């Protein structure tokens, strides 16, 4: 009877099953696309072969990292768009990207150059950005969404300037590597076995918090006051979600750099198909985002023989995501945003 049936547990699980199939299919596809020279039989059976190591130490962790990062960015984008009631919000908008970039560049360029230090610097930078932006956006205990967005944008611009200062002072080789790092890469580093578990925990906590807040995010669509009258505290919701999202996105950016467009385009695409209910949009965005990043990353590897080098996956997500987003906007303009 309804053009879009009301969300029922049955409909939710059907969509999530479809999303899970997409994500798993993407991961399997990525395995073959990303490393065509891998002989799966040898890789699974012969523990002394390089194939075994390539599969267990590199390919599987890399795919896992792609799944976690994609899920985090897409779900965070969806949640932030709902929290700020702004369809253009993305996971990097609250100063997190600038903070992380500055933090990681600072430690790299200033030269505490061990492998784990750059992620740590990035993470601390993201957290610092969150603190500054939230503090500046809070007035009388309330977080004004528009104000927060503006402050986030200004903060990112300032961080960009800070980054340029660092680059101007640093050795050109280090600058190039830092830029590469910021461009966004999914990659397994077997010498840092703790990065993926840490990232997974940070993202997992964020995802759970977002899913638990789904109904509150729905009610927030009606405006802060109406949401309050329905028993939701918008300020508490924002504060809690800003913190957990920043931790998750900060950890993501610290490990992978800035993988753009995922947090913007995936939630929009999902909403176009299933409507704006966060109870479905959040988990489905996570699954679709996971699959999207993994396939994009595998395509980077698949292109490597032709290009002789592996592009940062952030380049691919932007190159594919940008036009796709424009196509979506043209296709169903009224449904995306007013």
């Amino acid at each position: 009877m309804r053009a879009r049936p009301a969300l029922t547990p049955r409909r939710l699980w059907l969509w999530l099953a479809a999303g899970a199939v997409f994500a798993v299919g993407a991961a399997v596809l990525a395995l073959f696309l990303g490393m065509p020279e891998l002989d799966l039989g040898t890789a699974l059976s012969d523990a002394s072969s390089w194939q075994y190591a390539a599969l267990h130490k590199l390919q599987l962790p890399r795919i896992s990292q792609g799944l976690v990062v994609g899920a985090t960015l897409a779900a965070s984008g969806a949640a932030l768009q709902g929290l700020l009631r702004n369809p253009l919000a993305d996971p990097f908008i609250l100063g997190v990207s600038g903070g992380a970039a500055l933090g990681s560049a600072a430690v790299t360029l200033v030269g505490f150059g061990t492998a784990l230090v750059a992620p740590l610097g990035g993470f601390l930078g993201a957290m610092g950005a969150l603190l500054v932006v939230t503090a500046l956006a809070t007035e009388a205990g309330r977080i004004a969404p528009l104000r927060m967005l503006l402050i986030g944008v200004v903060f990112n611009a300032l961080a960009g300037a800070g980054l340029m200062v660092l680059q101007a002072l640093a050795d050109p080789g280090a600058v190039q590597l830092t830029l590469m790092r910021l461009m966004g890469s999914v990659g397994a580093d077997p010498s840092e076995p703790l990065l993926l578990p840490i990232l997974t925990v940070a993202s997992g906590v964020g995802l759970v918090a977002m899913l638990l807040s789904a109904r509150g995010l729905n009610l927030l669509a009606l405006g802060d006051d109406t949401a309050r009258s329905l028993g939701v505290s918008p300020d508490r919701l924002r504060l809690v979600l800003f913190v957990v999202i920043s931790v998750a996105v900060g950890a993501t950016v610290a490990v992978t750099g800035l993988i753009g467009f995922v947090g913007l385009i995936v939630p929009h695409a999902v909403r176009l198909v299933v409507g704006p209910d966060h109870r479905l949009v959040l988990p489905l965005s996570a699954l679709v985002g996971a699959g999207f990043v993994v396939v994009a990353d595998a395509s980077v590897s698949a292109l490597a023989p032709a290009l002789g080098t592996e592009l940062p996956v952030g380049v691919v997500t932007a190159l594919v995501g940008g036009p796709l987003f424009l196509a979506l906007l043209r296709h169903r303009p009224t449904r995306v945003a007013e």
Partner: protein
Amino acid sequence: MTRVVQRAPAPWVALVVVAAALGGCGRGAGQVPAPTPRVVSLVPAASAIIDALGAKAHLVGVTRYCAVTGPPVIGGMDARPEAVLAQDPDLVVLGDYPSQAALREQLTALGLNAVAPSFVGIDDLRAAVTRLGAALGREAAAAALVAALDRDLALAKERAASRRPVKVLLVYDVQQGYVYTTGGGDHLGALLDLCGARNIAQGGPLTTRLALDAVLARGPELILHVAPGEAYPDDAAARAYWKSLPEVPAVRAGHVYVWPDDHLAQNGPWIGAAALQLSDLLDRVAGAP
């Protein structure tokens, strides 16, 4: 590994050093004025060539990346035109890099004689030595330098003929599970080729990004970090990183090294000596079971 390039300092160097010490570090009153042509070099390799030609006294400005000691440092690779102008140079040497193109135009517009030879391949190195030798009136020294270079390179080539090809991964840096290496279009590629080694990233762009799985698939027998860096200052640090991938032949056999200086990374007058030292390393790898 030991430092290969032994450049005996010319006797006059001591004189200049003493003079500089007496006159203070700046362009003090007591300083011996530099002979003409006065040269500013904004390329570390060019500074080293000038030094090797025995013409360090002509240098009136270098970058902070230049290994030559004595001449005043006037900035990075992107030194300000004012800082260059202040040295009143007769010749400014830049590289044929996009990043220095604008600076070159500015300096030319200021009436300075700015040249920008290419420093990419070994032929470029020969040409640069000859050109700088001519500019500094040291044609003989330049010819000798080129001859020494060619002699070392020929020797390296000869040694390569009797050695099986070794698969090599050169490493600028490694982060986030990616190795940054050379695609072979530069002097490093030429050097590997000449020494009978196979660059596993051959064919990529100048700075090639290689995922670790590609490294595993291509199985290098020698992993060589081309210069000591922040994260990997020595062999031990590099081996500590690579030990997580013992499936790579180079790691298994212990052939992970960090070149002790930047003489491999910089396409300078020491390349001939570096080629011989690389040959030693390749002998060791090829001889290993």
